[in-house]
């Protein structure tokens, strides 16, 4: 069902539906690889669910900090056309040639003009659309402060006096006449990432949600924690504003079929979500707050998530109670919540009083998404999620339409990010890159050499539609600018970032032969690149501009004191002018890009990633250390859905071997590595003759896999009746007679996982056990199967198989970590003794076969060797360490390196394939470039001053500086991240951070404090 038949793409546009984190990722990946993207979202700004989160696990990062630069990136991508308040009405045509009809609801706001000043909201709060949160009103009606687009939206129906509303907007951005419009688009492919809704618990009587304000959903609780939320980050109880002392989380609300209307699947992310909320509660507010999580199975199956759970329990003392509370009843007398639950040891029900209860609500597909899928003719699965294939995880049933994120199945952020990049990779294949107009040569004037010129500074003051002009007299400010030394031009330019104003600035720079520019306007965070581009077009080096933030940091905050605002605006202009004098042209190093890719590892991930890239015309070197392809997946027979793995693998292998764009290098051992992203050189030794060969490549993808864990416990390797799940998988295909003869099979979970030797959860073993149990029953329906587990982690839709197994009589018995089952060899089998948690008694059973769920472990020796050669980071368990566990799960921290498959962490085949396609998608974004751009804000060492004291070597957070053969510190500009810590610590003042040189910073101080000198 892989729908990647070669079709000639005729359109180079791709439609991305949904502007959540996944949609943004897919759109950005596509845009960076040169595709034109139309990104639509039905709400007023993009960002989706994640913008409501306070911090994300397991790093507990502040999401706003990690996300906001990402969104502005999305906003300014040349190739991305962003349409908000827009939905898909119709899709027709085939892959490569879709016609899409979109409908856009009116915003009643001119995006070009709106400055997000908020005046409309101040006067007519009721007419401005807002995002419903826990409270009725967020402090600003933009969904979050860094909203893209930075504009409000009006709800015209609620507006009584349209004229007055229009008048309130100084920018004249309100368009009451706007109507819905239909847009027709021709696209080559569609990516669906509409996200999902969360379960609405108000229908559940026993939890009093909706009745009692102190019962909230986890997302609402998230808003309470958030600094940008209704309580501005204060933890207070909604009912009376008191600080809660005891908070309970109730898991699986709306998931695992527990309540009325609940879905049968597992929502996959809620356990970690609850743990995170509990930890943040303790960390941020008060350690004494009691936090209790009521759960069925603690499903922390992601990379290093198990350690997070351990920390929650042991360091933060979060109470984890294995139980399903049967009711929450508000206690009028105390104002508390009485939660009644039955402990899982069978003892009688307990009622405990809490101050707040958080319902961990699961995901579900919204009605509108289901409808949209219907119009597209996409097949849905039993749970209304887009149906995908295990071997083609992001392709829908309609060729050319791809899916990622929650609509594909409940999942966490990293998997969403992976699927987004995978979908981008596949969609890119269905389209051609946009005709690349080299803007540098077409639009830009040749860069002028200004090094010998005296500074001629041009100051341009933006009035920003009264945002600035309404508070300070911009004309007066411009006059002030003229009095500053070396200023040639100082003028007001209206709306600085509008096209017409940009043209004026452009012309003035050229006509007046300006060689430094100061913009008095809004924040450089959002507009610096825009003005840098302008300078470049006008023939000036882009680093000769300085922005004085007179809007966000002056007129917006000092509107109440115009005199002070005026003085400060002058300070800011003077600081910028003084600093820009010392700015010098910086060169962004650029080198030609090698478009070849080295893929290390020829398993399912390696082959898939190689094929994904080779299909797009890239040359791939696939280095495999074994004499054949296949890896670990080559040993698996069946997937949980019953798909035949060997058939799939054989086809994949043949395709890989026969692809003209792939050179498979067998018996390849990597021995050396040099270079930088875009021009790596890797040395291989090819066994058995040890022929040495060097490969030049632009990108490296590590798909080196993992090892099947075979710990020497439970008589594994000693007794023929003891085997791993992988052995059983083979046995099920190859020795039916032996299976048929078995009467009792025992399985033990978490063997060699979640233990001191390997703290990780191996993620795949619970589903493997369920898979094999069901297959055993298919062959031998009378077989007695016991699965001894600690937590059953059949996340997502695999929960259905767990349910089926239970229905079909598989007996699941939980054991405690410190009381593992005991085994003893018997004459024709094995005796397994375990403690029944309900009876509290030890039970013994005679099994014909003991199946150990041993999971996967990193190939420590091999990954360590590669990590040393490639200079990569690894986790404590020996897996490669990604750059950001959530947002950049496949990018390694060394640029140009990506990881796919089980080299990242244990995964099933479907996840590996998604990884592989995603890694290809990520690689593509680099490979689309023709040259390697190295930023200019890098540290530079003056070797004459350097004392080789090693301070920079020790201080650098990224280990970039080193003392070179000449005896002084050297900082590779390609690797420098530009933080400037080395420059600040250098005792010889031999290091300067370009763009933030000391003389620039001191000049700013001079500008500010000038009158002291005068």
């Amino acid at each position: 069902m892989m729908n990647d038949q070669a079709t000639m793409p005729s359109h180079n546009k791709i439609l991305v539906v949904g502007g959540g984190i996944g949609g943004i990722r897919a759109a950005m990946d596509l845009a960076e690889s040169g595709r034109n993207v139309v990104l639509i979202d039905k709400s007023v700004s993009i960002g989706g669910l994640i913008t409501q989160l306070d911090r994300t696990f397991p790093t507990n990062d502040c999401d706003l900090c990690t996300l906001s630069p990402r969104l502005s990136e999305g906003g300014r991508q040349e190739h991305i056309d962003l349409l908000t308040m827009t939905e898909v009405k119709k899709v027709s045509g085939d892959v490569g040639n879709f016609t899409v009809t979109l409908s856009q609801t009116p915003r009643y706001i001119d995006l070009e003009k709106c400055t997000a000043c908020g005046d409309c909201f101040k006067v007519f709060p009721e007419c401005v659309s807002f995002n419903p949160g826990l409270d009725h009103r967020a402090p600003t009606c933009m969904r979050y402060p860094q909203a893209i687009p930075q504009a409000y939206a009006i709800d015209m129906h609620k507006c009584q006096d349209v004229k007055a509303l229009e008048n309130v907007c100084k920018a004249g951005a309100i368009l009451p006449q706007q109507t819905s419009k239909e847009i027709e688009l021709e696209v080559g492919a569609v990516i669906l990432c509409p996200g999902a809704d969360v379960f609405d618990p108000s229908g559940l009587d026993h939890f009093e949600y909706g009745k009692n304000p102190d019962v909230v959903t986890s997302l609402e609780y998230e808003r309470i924690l958030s600094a940008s939320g209704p309580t501005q980050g204060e933890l207070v109880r909604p009912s009376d504003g008191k600080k809660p002392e005891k908070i309970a989380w109730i898991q699986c609300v709306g998931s695992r079929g527990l309540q009325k209307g609940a879905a049968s699947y597992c929502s996959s992310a809620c356990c970690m979500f609850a743990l995170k909320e509990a930890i943040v509660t303790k960390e941020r507010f008060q350690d004494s707050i009691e936090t209790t999580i009521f759960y069925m199975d603690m499903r922390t199956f992601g990379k290093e998530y198990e350690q997070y759970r351990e920390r929650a329990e042991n360091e933060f003392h979060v109470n984890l109670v294995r139980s399903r509370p049967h009711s929450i009843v508000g206690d009028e007398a105390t104002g508390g919540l009485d939660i009644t639950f039955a402990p899982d040891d069978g003892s009688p029900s307990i009622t405990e009083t809490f101050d707040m209860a958080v319902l961990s609500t699961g995901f579900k597909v919204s009605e509108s998404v289901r409808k949209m899928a219907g119009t597209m003719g996409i097949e849905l699965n039993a749970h209304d999620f887009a149906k995908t294939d295990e071997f083609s995880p992001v392709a829908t049933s309609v060729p050319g339409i791809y899916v990622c994120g929650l609509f594909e199945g409940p999942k966490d952020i990293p998997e969403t990010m992976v699927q987004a990049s995978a979908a981008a990779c596949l969609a890119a294949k269905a389209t051609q890159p946009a005709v690349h107009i080299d803007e540098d040569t077409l639009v830009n004037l040749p860069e002028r050499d200004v090094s010998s010129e005296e500074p001629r500074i041009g100051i341009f003051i933006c009035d920003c539609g009264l945002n600035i002009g309404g508070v300070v007299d911009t004309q007066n400010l411009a006059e002030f600018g003229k009095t500053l030394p070396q200023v040639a031009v100082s003028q007001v330019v209206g709306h600085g970032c509008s096209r017409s104003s940009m043209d004026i600035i452009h012309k003035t720079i050229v006509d007046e032969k300006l060689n430094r520019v100061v913009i008095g306007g809004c924040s450089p965070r959002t507009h610096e690149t825009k003005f840098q581009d302008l300078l470049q077009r006008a023939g000036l080096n882009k680093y000769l501009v300085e922005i004085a933030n007179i809007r966000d940091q002056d007129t917006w905050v000092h509107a109440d004191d115009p005199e002070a605002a005026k003085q400060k605006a002058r300070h800011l202009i003077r600081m910028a002018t003084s600093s820009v004098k010392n700015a010098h042209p910086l060169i962004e190093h650029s080198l030609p890009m090698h478009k070849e890719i080295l893929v290390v590892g020829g398993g399912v991930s390696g082959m898939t990633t190689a094929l994904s890239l080779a299909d797009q015309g890239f040359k791939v070197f696939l280095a495999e250390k074994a004499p054949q392809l296949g890896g670990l997946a080559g040993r698996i027979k069946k997937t949980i859905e019953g798909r035949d793995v060997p058939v799939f693998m054989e086809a994949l292998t043949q395709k890989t071997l026969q692809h003209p764009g792939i050179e498979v290098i067998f018996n390849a051992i990597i021995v050396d590595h040099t270079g930088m992203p875009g021009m790596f050189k890797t040395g291989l030794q090819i066994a058995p003759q040890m022929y040495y060969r060097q490969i030049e490549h632009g990108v490296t993808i590590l798909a080196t896999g993992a090892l099947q864990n075979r710990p020497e416990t439970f008589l594994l390797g000693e007794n023929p009746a003891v085997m791993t799940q992988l052995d059983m998988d083979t046995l099920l295909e190859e020795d039916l007679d032996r299976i048929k003869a078995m009467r009792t099979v025992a399985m033990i979970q978490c063997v060699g996982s979640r233990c001191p030797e390997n703290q990780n959860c191996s993620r795949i073993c619970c589903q493997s056990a369920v898979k094999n149990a069901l297959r055993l029953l298919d062959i031998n329906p009378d077989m007695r199967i016991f699965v001894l587990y600690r937590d059953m982690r059949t996340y997502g839709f695999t929960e259905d198989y767990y349910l089926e197994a239970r229905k079909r009589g598989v007996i699941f018995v939980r054991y405690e970590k410190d009381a593992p089952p005991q085994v003893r060899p018997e004459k024709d089998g094995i005796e397994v003794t375990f403690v029944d948690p309900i009876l509290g008694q030890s039970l013994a059973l005679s099994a014909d076969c003991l199946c150990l769920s041993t999971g996967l472990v990193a190939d420590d020796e091999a990954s360590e060797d590669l990590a040393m050669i490639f200079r990569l980071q690894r986790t404590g368990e020996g897996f490669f360490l990604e750059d950001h566990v959530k947002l950049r799960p496949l990018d390694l921290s060394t640029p140009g390196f990506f990881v796919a498959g089980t080299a990242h962490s244990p995964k099933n085949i479907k996840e590996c394939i998604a990884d592989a396609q995603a890694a290809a998608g990520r690689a593509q974004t680099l490979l689309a470039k023709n040259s390697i751009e190295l930023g200019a804000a890098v540290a530079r060492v003056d070797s004459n001053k350097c004392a080789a004291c090693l301070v920079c070597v020790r201080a650098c957070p990224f280990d970039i500086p080193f003392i070179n053969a000449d005896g002084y510190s050297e900082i590779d500009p390609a690797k420098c991240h530009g933080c400037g810590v080395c420059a600040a610590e250098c005792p010889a003042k031999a290091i300067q951070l370009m763009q933030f040189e000391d003389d620039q910073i001191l000049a700013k101080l001079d500008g500010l404090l000038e009158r002291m000198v005068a």
Partner: protein
Amino acid sequence: MITAERKPLEEIIDSVKPFQRILLVGCNECVTVCAAGGRKEVGILASALQMNFMKAGQTIDIKELTLERQCDPEYVEELSTHMDQVDAVLSMACGCGVQEIARRYKDKPVLPAVNTKFMGASERQGVWAERCQGCGDCLLGLTGGICPIARCSKRLLNGPCGGSTNGKCEISPEVDCVWQLIWDRLKALGMEDRYEDIMPAKNWQTGRGGGPRKIIREDLAE
């Protein structure tokens, strides 16, 4: 390397008070590495002095300069062009540098801005510790490469005194008992029996006991 530490500002301020024009000279060798007198420290001190005098409505003229090395006459010569414009030199080099400037510029007062401390090594970023006393007769070969002269509070050559507790010296729990270190090292090297030999009384003639020292390499000296 030679380590040093900036003198208390009060002392420096007192010493420069009589002068109007100061040449503040750093050194790009050891004192840079130990963050006592490199270009950066020169800048900070200049700024601090400036502010101190501005506070009283006075100004002081400070010229900042950092030499490659203050203990070599050729580098010190670089100061000559500035000498007629200054009243005094404030040196941030070790004592060697201060003396070298004093030797060359006989008519200018030279003031030290740092206290020269010891010959040491970087324990980690920002932490330097004494390692050598320059006794002129190295016995590290006998003590597992760890010097009891520089690092034992009592310069004991034959083992720890009775005050050694949990591997720390009796004078402070911040100070390692060097004999604990030596013993651990000897054990690691399988050289425990070394300890049993009595180390004879040290001949201090090769050290300061013999008066000011000089090294003359006949093949190099002119």
